[in-house]
């Protein structure tokens, strides 16, 4: 077990190095540069040169690359060119929002998927499962931003029961946690529902498959009720593929959240990344990508660990 984790962590470091290197090369290869974003398109070459020297952009890009890693080893992620604040501070500020959105959305989609998938798996081949399948496919086809926009139009504009604008500025004091939570509802719903169609379909198929296995017949032959077999035996085994998929879908959920964050004007990491990429704010982009890499790697490791708990055979393989 410990060996498996150690091995995985060593591989993860390699993954992160590759990820950051590719992003670094891509952002630095683009034309223009942060100086133009800061000074405007009409900046004089002299002003640009001066700014580049101040930002440390006058050395070759490979030097910048190694300097970035050197700073990282010291725990520094640099300063944002545009916002002139430490990247760590920026990330810390936006990460909280993103995590709230992320975790809320994942919990919502997992719970819904388990519920829907159980019904679908148990009634497989009959009309409830078919109906669910039709809805899943329809939901799968809907783009996230469209769903988000519809939510805004109905909940926010038409019925006016929920705030639409999101939390624009964290420095403005919020009147209590309840209001904060109200702002989270629509973004979480949008991101969460995005995953449900795929996850629930996957889980439904998995439940159906497990129900046809021999151990289910054994459990029934012991005199257990179908419900006891479903929740006591089948659920745990059927969760394994769901957990794997979930571990792999973390980056996908993030992509979804970028769109949703812009629709809801929600100050999350996706929003920050999008803005920083446009203005070529290298340190922020690299910092966020590194963090995303860590989240993805940790997410997958967690998924494997949970699977190890669900199925003892995994550990011994």
């Amino acid at each position, binding site marked *: 077990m410990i060996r498996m984790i150690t091995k995985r962590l060593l591989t993860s470091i390699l993954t992160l190095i590759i990820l950051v290197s590719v992003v670094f090369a891509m952002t630095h290869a683009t034309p223009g540069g942060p100086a133009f974003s800061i000074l405007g398109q009409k900046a004089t070459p002299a002003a640009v040169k001066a700014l580049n020297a101040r930002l440390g952009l006058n050395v070759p890009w490979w030097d910048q690359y190694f300097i970035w890693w050197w700073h990282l080893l010291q725990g520094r992620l640099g300063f944002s060119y545009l916002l002139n604040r430490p990247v760590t501070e920026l990330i810390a500020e936006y990460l909280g929002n993103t995590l709230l959105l992320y975790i809320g959305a994942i919990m919502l989609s997992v719970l819904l998927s388990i519920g829907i998938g159980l019904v679908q798996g148990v009634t497989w081949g009959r009309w409830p499962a078919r109906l669910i399948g039709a809805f899943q496919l329809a939901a799968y086809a809907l783009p996230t931003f469209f769903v988000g926009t519809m939510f805004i139009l109905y909940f926010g504009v038409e019925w006016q029961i929920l705030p639409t604008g999101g939390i624009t500025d964290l420095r403005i004091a919020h009147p209590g946690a309840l209001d904060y939570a109200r702002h989270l509802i629509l973004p979480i719903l949008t991101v969460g529902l995005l995953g449900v169609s795929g996850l629930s379909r996957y889980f439904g198929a998995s439940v159906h498959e497990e129900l046809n296995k021999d151990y289910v017949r*054994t459990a029934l*032959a012991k005199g257990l009720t179908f419900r006891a077999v479903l929740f006591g035996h089948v659920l745990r085994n059927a969760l394994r593929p769901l957990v794997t998929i979930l571990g792999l879908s973390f980056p996908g959920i993030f992509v979804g959240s970028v769109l949703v964050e812009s629709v809801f004007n929600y100050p999350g990491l996706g929003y920050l990344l999008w803005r920083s990429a446009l203005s070529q704010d290298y340190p922020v982009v690299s910092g966020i990508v590194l963090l995303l890499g860590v989240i993805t790697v940790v997410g997958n490791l967690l998924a494997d660990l949970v699977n190890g708990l669900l*199925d*003892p055979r995994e550990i011994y393989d």
Partner: protein
Amino acid sequence: MSAVLTLDQFSVALKRGRGKNVPILDDINLTVAAGEMTALVGESGSGKTIASLGVIRLLPRGASTSGRVMLGAQDLTTLSDAAMRKVRGRDIGMVFQNPLSALNPSTRVGAQITEVYRLHTGESDRAARARALELFGEVGIPNPADRLDDYPHQFSGGMRQRVMIAMALACSPKLLIADEPTTGLDLLVARQIMALLTRLRRERQMGVLFITHDLSVVEEHADQVHVLYAGRSVEWGSARSFFEQPRHPYSQALLGAVPRLGQARLVSIPGNLPDPETRPPGCRFAPRCAYREDACDEAYPAADSMGGTMFACRRGRTITPEALGVSEQAVAHAHNTGAVVLQADAVGVDYARSATSFVRGLFGGRDRLRALSDISFSLRRGQCLGVVGESGSGKSTLGRAVLQMIPYHGRVILDGHDFSVMRGRERRAARRGVQVVFQDPRESLNPRMRIGEIVAEPLKLAGMVGARARRDAAAALLDRVGLNERMMSQFPIAVSGGQAQRIAIARALATKPAIIVLDEPTSSLDVSTQAMLLNLLKDLAESDGLSYILISHDIAAVSYMADTIAVLRGGQLMEMGDAASVLGAPQSSYTKELVAASPHFRAIHQAGAVSGAVAVADKTGF
């Protein structure tokens, strides 16, 4: 003896397609007495598993039953669902085939046992655990206290089945239903499980309904035998009378299909089992029966009785196994006169065991595991080398080394060509001389390829030009294994297990090999299908001078086919010699155990001991 279970005119119909009810099982009358074992015997498609699931009312959705299922004085068919759940696990214990999939893989075995005990007794977890511990001891699991918290995959096949039995016994049921509990287990392990079931039912006065396709398993253990064919009882009665003198032609054919040493030919039943939807109105076995009369087709024959068994056959009183050609006359095995086609010199195989620690793995420190140690043999034209051993004995490894599928040391020489010195094109050409047929015919045929393509593929690889020519050659190959060339356009899913294995043989024959390695070729087949296949292989050996390496844990099949037998255990050669001496006068204690475990060898053992003695006498110069 009081009856624990009585089936009275029990019938089951399953739903197939839209609103169509297909009768699977018709009018079964069967009794299991307390402390006794009734064997319900039938090949695949006979309805035997449906019968067991019908008893505990776990039939597939849409099934309908009629007749009565009496557990003691209680008719199970009239119980409410809730009352039926109380019967399952408490009054009736179930043991299924393949315990690895029948146990929940992610739950500790102890918890799986305590679950059923607590459900029916309402006892505390502590009491249930004590009970599980006691049961583990009773079914013979060593160090029960240490094993209770293990998972199913941590047990060996035989131990896993013991776990399953312990679970079934948890509430001391009156009836145990065991559905093929020994299928897939090694011979010696299967024997231990049978002995365990026999001890348990005697000690506990528990009735056992034993479901199997293999008559030879039950011969020593069953009190009653009940043979099913196509959903109907064909013969039933006391096991002793049955094995002494089976009356129904199907029973006789089933017994005659079990391979024995020195038997000229196995009894094979022509034709196939009728589909449940197209079963003949009269005797269901009539279309395949050598004794059919016109009257047999009119109505299902009434039960008749003679000499201790009942049988549903109009001619059961008069026909005897001799008339069917089940003769015990031994034929001399081919003499060692053919040229040597294959020679193995000190063939050994090591596997690299996965590194025991990550750091050691980094530095290349790997354990070597000896899978096979330095085996030498030679195989003559037209002969069969039987390789016998339990799982993990290295018998399949030997086959793979001969096939050049894995690295080995030592030399394999085919027709004078030493594989170890050949490279490239020459080596590839030589490899065509050794072909293989695997255990599971369905798994070993690509499901996305048509049967014609499967058989023709080796021809293409061997450089045969022209689709037309390959097609004709494939048709000819199918014809040789007794299949119709019309099958060429079908996919493997459309054929039966026996047919699939014939296709695999046709494919193996395509490159005109000198040797075919048969790796458990019949273990997944019914006895009568196995008989047809073994007969086919024998014919091919005779007509083409083909040689075989037959790898099997089934000593009966090996004894029928092999001229020479090698016994392996843990990668070591225990002994090797001509079939009659190895089986007749086994030298190593392991071979003795194997031979003793096969009930059919009791008689042969004695007869063989004589010829073995002769063989020994020859060597000593008498």
